[in-house]
């Protein structure tokens, strides 16, 4: 500490070129690694070690995405996949939070749902897809139902954990000062459980996207997953790789968007002060 205080002012204001260059290097690292990945992809594709069918070069894939974008297919498929994922996610969010609150407040609800959740959460729900197809048909209802079924469990458990972690002192003081149950719920329980609930939603959203893509892949039709399977059936590997890039981009944007929503909703919370790792 003392060394810094006694150092000349200029030395603090202008760090040496060495430090600056080092800082720049670390900041450039992400571009380096992504660049290296693309260069390696191009190199392997060109080297002839693998056929163009097994690994089309990045420019071919980019071109294919460009054609899809111009033709409009890309946007239709993306919109459909996002619609299915978000419709199921919204149902899961509302139902999950409602069930979580019901379980925390009502003994019968807790008795009924507790074993279902402890057995249902670790189950691979995707195995029920053929059953749900049997019941609800081959269209969007099935896909949205599957998404909701898979995404609801993390929301319920997060809501329960959030409510359980509400500080007793806050509840006691609120009740002591004459708050009604409704007010306690609105002004104490909900805000203090919100960070945990948001974490649950952040876990649920990628799951929703995975399930939306998988159901599209199994059932075919439009949507990013369906389009990729169509390309695959016609042995169009540029289309398959374009699908992967598109799905990865959508996943990245959705998860980043959710982190932004969290920061916005929890601006008042101490966690917003710390650098977010997401």
């Amino acid at each position, binding site marked *: 500490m003392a060394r810094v205080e006694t150092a000349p002012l200029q030395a603090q204001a202008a760090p040496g070129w060495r430090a600056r260059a080092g800082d720049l290097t670390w900041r450039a690292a992400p571009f380096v690694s992504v660049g290296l990945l693309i260069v390696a992809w191009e190199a392997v594709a060109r080297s002839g070690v693998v056929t163009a069918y097994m690994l089309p070069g990045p420019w071919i894939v980019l071109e294919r995405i460009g054609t899809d974008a111009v033709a409009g297919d890309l946007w239709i498929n993306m919109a459909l996949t996002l619609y299915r994922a978000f419709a199921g996610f919204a149902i899961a969010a509302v139902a999950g939070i409602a069930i979580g609150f019901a379980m925390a407040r009502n003994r019968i609800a807790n*008795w009924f749902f507790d074993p279902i959740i402890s057995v249902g959460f*670790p*189950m691979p729900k995707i195995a029920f897809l053929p059953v749900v197809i049997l019941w609800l048909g081959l269209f969007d209802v099935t896909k949205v139902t599957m998404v909701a079924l898979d995404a609801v469990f993390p929301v319920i458990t997060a809501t329960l954990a959030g409510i359980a972690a509400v500080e007793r002192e806050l509840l006691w003081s609120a009740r002591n000062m004459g708050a009604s149950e409704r007010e306690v719920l609105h002004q104490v329980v909900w805000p203090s459980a919100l960070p945990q609930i948001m974490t649950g939603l952040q876990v649920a959203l990628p799951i929703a996207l*995975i399930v939306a893509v998988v159901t599209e892949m199994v059932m075919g039709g439009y949507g*990013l997953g369906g389009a990729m399977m169509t390309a695959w059936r016609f042995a169009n590997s540029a289309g398959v790789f374009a699908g*992967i890039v598109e799905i990865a981009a959508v996943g990245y944007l959705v*998860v980043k968007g959710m982190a932004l929503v969290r920061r916005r909703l929890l601006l008042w919370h101490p966690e917003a002060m710390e650098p977010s790792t997401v």
Partner: protein
Amino acid sequence: MKAALIRYSPLLVLALAWELIARLGLVSSSALPPLSGVIVSWFDLLRSGDLVTASASSLYRGGTGLLLAVVVGALIGIAMAWWRPVNALMSPLVEMFYPMPKSALIPVTVVWLGFGDGSKILLIFLGCMLPVTLGAFNGARASDRMLVWSARSMGASRLRMLWDVVLPSAMPELLNGIRTAIALSFILLVSSELIVARQGLGYLIGYLGADGDYQPMFAVVLTVAFLGFAADRLYMLLVTRVLAWRA
């Protein structure tokens, strides 16, 4: 025993409701075959050997892929926490691929390795690696500076410190990441077998469903669900064992 019975009684209620709805003919028996019939079908499948072959092939794929994912994922995660250049190069890639729905890789793995076991193992390996990596990275990064410094001042080599300090502190988060990976591996396994496979539990479900044999199909679906549940429970038992020292 009695407590467990009361705790799990809602499942019993659901099972009874299933049987009643099917027996009373409220829905057609192809949409919901009675539970008792499904149980009979399950024993038939078990006796014919179909269930055993399919389970063995699915568990082999899942287990191998998962094992590879855990070993490679943990190594990368700890390397990222330990060496800054590795972190600088790897973390953008991890951040880029982590949110990607890994099921998108199903067709490519088939293009690369064909219809058999290899493509499923590769898929599960790629799909399950990142949660393990992230768990190991977060855990190792959070290891107590004091412990690292004391180990260093007592003359521990870098490798020794990795093994004795960093790995134990990374353990809880790493084990949590592996739990996520196990759940993911079942999703990827079943969906890839539903889409392209010649054997395995997912293939059996699709095959029976296409034939309209809904009773055995329900039996296989319940088997898969049970295996996923059992894998998670067994794993959690193991975790409490491994983490017993933390008390």
